[in-house]
């Protein structure tokens, strides 16, 4: 190769760097480094005039290596690579020295910051000498998509993709789609009926010719890479043939076995063969094997006997499907905090202490009481209406003992429930809160409305619920009065925290999604890439990423669909050339690297007796390179030569 001619640019980043680092000094220092032809400093290297500097130097001064000392490569590496390409130079003949995040922002003293900037620049100059041109490649994108999770976010995503004419698989773990929204009565702040606005979407999703609904199914594994995923789906045995069932309901009328209903939060019973709720989609029952008399004892079989279509099939087994898709949307939703692990709030101890989700079922016309708010005694509903009800906010949320984050939607949900209880029973309703967080369109107005309805707002967290002589008391401080209060009530509603869904860990593992400290799925950038994940082609929408209300979940569902459609419509996708490579001659076939690869990109080839890297899957993380005992693995753009040059230089100053 011809002589190395390096250009160095030191960015001021306005005052971000220049206030701390003596940029002119760094520039002069760089000018004297071996191989450096040009050294400049400039206000904003990422702006057009800054880019133009690069271009003209490459063209006019014969520059063939470029170092930009500015911000993090996460910000602008791609920008500068493109500049190089536009001037006819391979984009990988470039190195960035991060003198902002790693230097000016985190160093107190100007002199030390300048010293560190010099070291980082010198290291980059030394390293870039060993860079080699690399070629980016493209792969075709499969035109089908997969949506995992049939709540409102997933349904919205699936519909949007299908309406654009692309084939979608919608996989739902439970027997019906509809998610958490299906269990709600009214929605804030407009108080429109949840089922009325949800069921049309559920039906459309089930009937849309471009959507195949796989309910009672779970994703077991994912292979492949962006544009070309192979997804294994387990269709759990329903013991009812979907194609034969008409949803007449005879089976569950005849079934003799009662089981507490999950959908109603244990406040009513379902049968061992059941649909979770009347508007279920698909309207096909499932048999809950662990509670079915036939499965447990071999007797009964009433459902089979009475089914007019012979749709019951006890012999049915789980089936496995392999789907080929170009992109995946994960919309696996959330769960709510189960307060039995927090006995101070009395749930599970006192039967008239309910969670907000349970109360949603009580106020719902299709719920266990036909929409009446009634007290329970000895496990049964009475016809007695509570005269006073306490709604406790932040149960498990904003609490380091449980979930430290704010669950975001419960303030409004609690206000809504307070309103509904008041409306339905005329009871005195107390709202125990820390702060009312009503940030959202029409939310503060709703709060005002509920205040005017005469709800008693007590600013103080409900600390404890205790019964005395058959009367429940909420213990709290009325912090605005500075007074301790024990408020007697007939019923307590706990607004429990929004938590990651059970099984979120497994879903994250299957799809290569990272999780935050709170257990929710982690987006690739908190502001600018809220729907992308660390794995290209896998998107997250709705509450699996964090607590959200319905409007936000719907918006994210639609946003996820846009991500998928832009990928599918582009038709091909770029693959980074920064990947590991194996020298097959040197590889001993020990397979140490195979299980270490977080992306399952390495396979052992029996015939060659050596391992091979799937370049489309490899992310260039380098784990395998470090593990290889025979030194057969290396990572492009991160070769030993390049890294050692950089380390030697940075540590010699």
């Amino acid at each position, binding site marked *: 190769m011809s002589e190395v001619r390096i250009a160095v640019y030191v960015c001021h980043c306005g005052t971000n760097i220049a206030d701390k680092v003596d940029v002119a000094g760094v520039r002069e220092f760089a000018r004297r480094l071996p191989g450096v032809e040009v050294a400049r400093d400039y206000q904003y290297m990422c702006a057009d005039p800054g880019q133009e500097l690069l271009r003209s130097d490459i063209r006019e001064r014969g520059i063939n290596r470029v170092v930009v000392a500015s911000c993090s490569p996460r910000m602008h590496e791609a920008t500068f690579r493109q500049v190089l390409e536009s001037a006819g130079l391979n984009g990988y003949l470039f190195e960035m020295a991060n003198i902002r995040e790693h230097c000016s922002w985190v160093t107190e003293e100007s002199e030390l910051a300048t010293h560190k900037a010099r070291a980082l620049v010198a290291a980059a100059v030394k390293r870039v000498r060993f860079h080699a041109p690399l070629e980016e490649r493209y792969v075709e994108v499969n035109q089908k998509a997969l949506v995992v999770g049939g709540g409102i976010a997933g349904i919205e995503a699936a519909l949007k993709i299908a309406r654009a004419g692309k084939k979608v698989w919608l996989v739902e773990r439970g027997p019906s789609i509809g998610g958490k929204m299906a269990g709600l009565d009214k929605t804030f702040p407009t108080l429109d009926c949840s089922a009325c606005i949800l069921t049309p979407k559920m039906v459309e999703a089930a009937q849309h010719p471009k959507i195949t609904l796989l309910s009672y199914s779970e994703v077991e594994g994912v292979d492949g890479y962006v544009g070309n995923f192979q997804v294994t789906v387990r269709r759990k045995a329903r013991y009812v043939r979907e194609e034969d069932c008409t949803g007449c309901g005879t089976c569950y009328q005849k079934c003799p076995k009662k089981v507490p209903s999950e959908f109603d939060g244990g406040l009513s019973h379902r049968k061992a063969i059941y649909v979770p709720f009347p508007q279920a989609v698909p309207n096909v029952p499932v048999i809950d094997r662990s509670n079915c008399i036939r499965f447990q004892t071999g007797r009964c079989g009433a459902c089979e006997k009475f089914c007019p279509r012979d749709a019951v099939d006890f012999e049915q087994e789980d089936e496995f499907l392999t789907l080929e898709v170009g992109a995946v949307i994960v919309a696996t939703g959330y769960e709510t905090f189960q307060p039995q692990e*927090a*006995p*101070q709030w009395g749930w599970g*101890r006192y039967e008239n202490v309910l969670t907000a989700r349970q109360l949603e079922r009580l106020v719902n016309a299709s719920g266990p009481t036909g929409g009446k708010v009634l007290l329970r005694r000895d496990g049964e509903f009475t016809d007695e209406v509570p005269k006073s009800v306490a709604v406790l906010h932040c149960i498990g949320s904003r609490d380091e003992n449980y979930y430290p984050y704010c669950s975001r939607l419960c303030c409004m949900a609690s206000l809504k429930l307070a309103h509904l209880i008041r409306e339905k029973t005329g009871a005195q309703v107390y709202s125990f809160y820390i702060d009312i967080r009503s940030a959202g369109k029409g939310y503060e107005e709703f709060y005002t409305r509920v205040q005017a309805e005469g709800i008693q707002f007590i600013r103080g967290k409900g600390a404890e619920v*205790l*019964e005395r*002589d058959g009367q429940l008391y909420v213990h709290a401080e009325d912090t605005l009065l500075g007074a301790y209060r024990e408020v007697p009530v007939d019923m307590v509603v706990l607004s429990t925290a929004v938590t990651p869904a059970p099984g979120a860990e497994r879903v994250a593992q299957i799809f290569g999604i990272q999780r935050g400290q709170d257990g929710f799925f982690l987006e690739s950038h908190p502001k600018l890439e809220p729907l992308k994940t660390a794995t290209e082609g896998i998107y997250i929408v709705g509450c699996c990423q964090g607590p959200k209300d319905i409007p936000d979940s719907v918006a994210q569902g639609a946003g996820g669909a846009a991500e998928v459609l832009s990928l599918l419509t582009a038709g091909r996708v770029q693959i980074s050339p920064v990947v590991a490579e194996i020298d097959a001659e040197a590889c001993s076939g020990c397979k140490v690297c195979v299980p270490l690869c977080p992306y399952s990109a390495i396979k052992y080839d029996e015939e060659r007796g050596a391992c091979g890297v799937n370049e489309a899957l490899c992310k260039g993380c380098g784990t395998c390179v470090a593990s290889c005992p025979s030194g057969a693995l290396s990572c492009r753009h991160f070769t030993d030569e390049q890294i050692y040059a950089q380390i030697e230089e940075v540590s010699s100053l």
Partner: protein
Amino acid sequence: MRRYWYYPGCSGHASARDYQRSVALISPALGLDLVEVEDWNCCGTTAMTSVEPRLSVVLSARNLALAEEAGGRADLVVTCNSCYAILRRAQEQYARRREVRAEVDEALAGIGRRYSGTVRVRHLLEVLVRDVGLDALRERVRRPLSGLRLAPYYGCLLGRPRNDFEDPEEPLSMDRLLEATGATVVRFDRKSKCCGGALITTHEEAALELVREVLSEAAAREARAVVTACPMCQFNLDAYQAKVNAAFGTRLRLPVLYFSQVLGLSLGFGASELGLGQRFVPVGGVGKL
């Protein structure tokens, strides 16, 4: 025989001698060899901690150092919830706060002692439930206490602040232990409420309310007796019951026993050797099972 160092605490030698006696009786029968730490001192309890937060840490540290010096298995068994919490607090602060550790090391050095942090402080209840085990306890029961309704009262300091033994809100170890004796354990929502023991000499009026609160529920649940694991709780609930009745017009008459005494009865020991006579509210029929 499993050997443990034993820290009876001040009350063990005074107001809770009956507790001590029952522990001394049942331990060998259950294969436990409890050896009293030589020349131990007061742990400091709430009072000294309120005078100076680090005072009870250094006082406790001397006890921990004594147990460590004595060698062997470094489990220090206590029977008083207050000693338990204070000794654990000392351990925790010693481990977590560098400045406290330095102060303790220095103070101990001043009296020619040192502590290296190896002692495990354990409540006898924990030793019984975990080391001996409920199955072994059940096997040794010779006189099942069938039909005896008991309210297990844990008080504050067995599960609070957090430790690796009991739940701060809903402790269960004593429930399980009492069930193993064949007794009926009643539901007891106030089982870990405060009885006001730390305030009884200084704010009696307030403390009596707390005593009433605990005993009233036990009575409402039709318990024949309240069972405790702490001399402070026992004394407070027992000796002040008459005052509660006088102050609030209640008619409480609930004997307050130690779990070791109840266990002793089920193992076949007699009421008087277990010290059941030494209380303000007589045990009545409970001791004659």
